[in-house]
């Protein structure tokens, strides 16, 4: 080996979105540099300008077809604030309910469709079988159950709220329609079934999957960073509302109101990626992706949320969190633990959806307050599956958008994803030896984040 060469992994597969990896090897065949290129830029910040603010919740959903409910709800919260309208309690609850069900459904998708093949079929298996099709052939009963559960969740949302992908039912001032007693019963029954499946999934993973990959978990893509997530006033994980908690790698943290996010977060523009890299501006240490000495770097998404939370608000999820913390501490840093954290959140999302469906107020017919267009500014935020999602809008007197800034869940993790990929590449590729299995393991460091 005497030449430098670049290995191009394009596209990164079994993730949502468009990205590629370039790994540069030096003349000894060791990694000199690796970069993740995020390939797409669409310009939502610009092209929403001039549009009536109340239409944004139906436009910005197209940022992502996997988590449109989260964009839909965050956008509605921002518009409510611009127009100074407060949704009635039942309107808020319906938004939260569907957003929570969408969380539950998304985690099944990610775990089984995008990630599981690496664990169930094995990271070194041939690419032609290392996918959900392979999983379906290897374990047809499980595959059938998974598609049934997701279908159930999706159709439940569609039946009640019209569209499941690119939703429309949350509106300025609340929700477009009230829930009938019949809807409530059906959804409650459905969610109980999905909850049972969530319990089955986490038990299955703890018994048959994670123990087999303990070495990989402790080594693949491991980096040391801070974390971000939303907690309620008691410090419990919350996916819908609360204060933002920004935690340093040593576990110390600050809580802030999302309306003040610009004081805490900045975005760095790299030369090699359309995606910007958010960092903790308030730590006043600048920005660096150096694996041994990162600056300003924090992570979002499942592992981040269970790290920043003091506890889980529901009993079964709390039990799971305690078990997890005993094994991995707080904050846990190992990147593949995102998958474990995902399943804990899955249990929480199901439990919480059931709680909400058992709340009699959920069928209150008063779901929407009237609004008037006016000038204002509002920041709307929820926890999307991939992280803290921030929509910040300003309107003119006519209620048309004059300015928008959005920080999408995955964006927070773009820097950390680069670091994890670099770490994985450096530790796996030695003396020019590369094979398909190794390259797939590098990609697994990306898939954990579920970008």
């Amino acid at each position, binding site marked *: 080996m005497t030449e430098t060469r670049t290995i*191009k992994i*394009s596209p990164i597969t079994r993730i949502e979105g468009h990205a590629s990896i370039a790994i540069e090897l030096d003349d000894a065949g060791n990694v000199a540099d690796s970069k993740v290129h995020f390939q797409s830029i669409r*310009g939502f910040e610009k092209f929403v300008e001039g549009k009536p603010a109340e239409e944004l919740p139906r436009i910005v959903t197209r940022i992502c*077809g996997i988590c*449109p409910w989260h964009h839909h709800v965050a956008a509605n919260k921002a518009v409510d604030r611009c127009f100074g309208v407060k949704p009635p309690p039942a309107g808020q609850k319906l938004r939260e309910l569907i957003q929570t069900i969408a969380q539950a459904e998304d985690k099944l998708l990610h775990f089984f469709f995008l990630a599981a093949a690496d664990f169930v079929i094995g990271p070194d298996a041939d690419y032609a079988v290392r*996918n959900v*099709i392979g999983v379906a052939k290897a374990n047809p009963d499980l595959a059938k159950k998974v598609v049934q559960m*997701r279908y159930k969740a999706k159709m439940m949302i569609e039946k009640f709220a019209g569209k499941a992908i690119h939703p429309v039912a949350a509106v300025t001032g609340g929700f477009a329609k009230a829930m009938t007693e019949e809807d409530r019963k059906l959804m409650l029954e459905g969610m109980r079934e999905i909850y049972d499946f969530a319990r089955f999934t986490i038990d299955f993973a703890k018994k048959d999957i994670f123990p087999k990959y303990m070495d990989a978990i402790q080594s693949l893509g491991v980096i040391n960073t801070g974390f971000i997530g939303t907690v309620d006033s008691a410090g419990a994980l919350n996916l819908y509302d609360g204060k933002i908690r920004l935690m340093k790698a040593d576990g110390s943290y600050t809580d802030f109101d999302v309306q003040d996010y610009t004081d805490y977060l900045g975005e760095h523009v790299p*030369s090699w990626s*359309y995606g910007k890299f958010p960092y903790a501006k308030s730590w006043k240490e600048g920005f660096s992706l150096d694996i041994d000495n990162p600056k300003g770097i924090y992570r979002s998404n499942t592992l981040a949320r269970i790290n920043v939370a003091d506890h889980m608000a529901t009993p079964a999820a709390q039990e799971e969190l305690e078990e997890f913390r005993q094994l991995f501490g707080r904050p846990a840093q190992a990147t593949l633990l995102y998958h474990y954290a995902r399943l804990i959140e899955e249990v929480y999302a199901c439990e919480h959806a059931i709680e909400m469906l058992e709340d009699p107020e959920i069928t209150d017919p008063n779901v929407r307050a009237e609004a008037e267009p006016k000038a204002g500014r509002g920041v709307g935020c929820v926890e999307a599956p991939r992280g803290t999602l921030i929509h910040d809008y300003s309107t003119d007197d006519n209620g048309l958008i004059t300015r928008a800034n959005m920080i999408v869940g995955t964006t927070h993790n773009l820097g950390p994803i680069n670091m994890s990929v670099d770490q994985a590449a450096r530790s796996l590729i030695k003396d020019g030896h590369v094979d398909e299995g190794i390259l797939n393991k590098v990609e697994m460091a990306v898939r954990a984040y579920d970008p």
Partner: protein
Amino acid sequence: MAAKVASDWLNACSGCEIAIVDMGERLLTVLDLVEFVHLPALMDHKYYGQMGDGAHLSFPEADLGIISGSIKNEEHLEVALEMRKKCGAIIALGTCATHGGIPALANSWSNDELFTRYYSTETTDPCDAVPADGVPPLLENVSALDEKINVDIYLPGCPPHPDQVFGALAAFLEGKTPELPTKSVCDTCPTKREGKGKIGKLRRFLQAPQYKGADEPLDQMRCLLEQGILCMGPVTRAGCGGDGVVPRCISARVPCRGCYGPVQPGGNQRLDMLNALASNGIDPASLPETVSMLRFSGGHGMLKPARR
């Protein structure tokens, strides 16, 4: 022998791929009948070979290519051209692929304007130059697929309903051309129409439409347009309700915004809607803006940067 299928997403949000996954158990049937040879959302086949050292973008041959998303950068174009070469038939999946979709709203601005805004938000650190290393350069416009390659089968919808995705695949596998509804959303809408009312003006969707409550069947509610709320049903292709037929947004008591694109392939949703309003005596100036009427169909040169 199973039909070989290749699928890729271009300037897309992945909603169309999720619509495929959302077929439920029918997905397992499809997986039995087709052999996917390329599908980045769910399988690991790579453009440059599995070892990352192939020199050219390469695709396996396939009977069918399913493409979602529009074309906005050089890589999208390259992939679309390559798939056209390697696939027997091409399905344009979703309104981005058939008409440009929401991302084609960008066509109202130049790339410079898009970049300037994106790289100068209140949270963004000042930067010297737009990123250019390892990322595909943008093309001037967002184009629908058929502006760049021949398309055999059109399947609009943002996203298309899973029932329709399944129907189209099943038809293709039987050697038939999938049939699309040729009606408008209004033609499949159960709401009550009482003829030309005296609306005169439209109002913004900031108050709830009138109906008796969540228990009241949809066919008892008066048409939203007749209630003075802009609804794009008259100028939008039917089908979003899937086998259940009722338009999805209307079933949630919110107006249609046109996500299946124009009823006729070359139709202009804004022009057609403005005509429909005018012929019903409704003043389009009562709306704060009308560009949004093309929010799903800004490809095919429908939206252009204003001279500023």
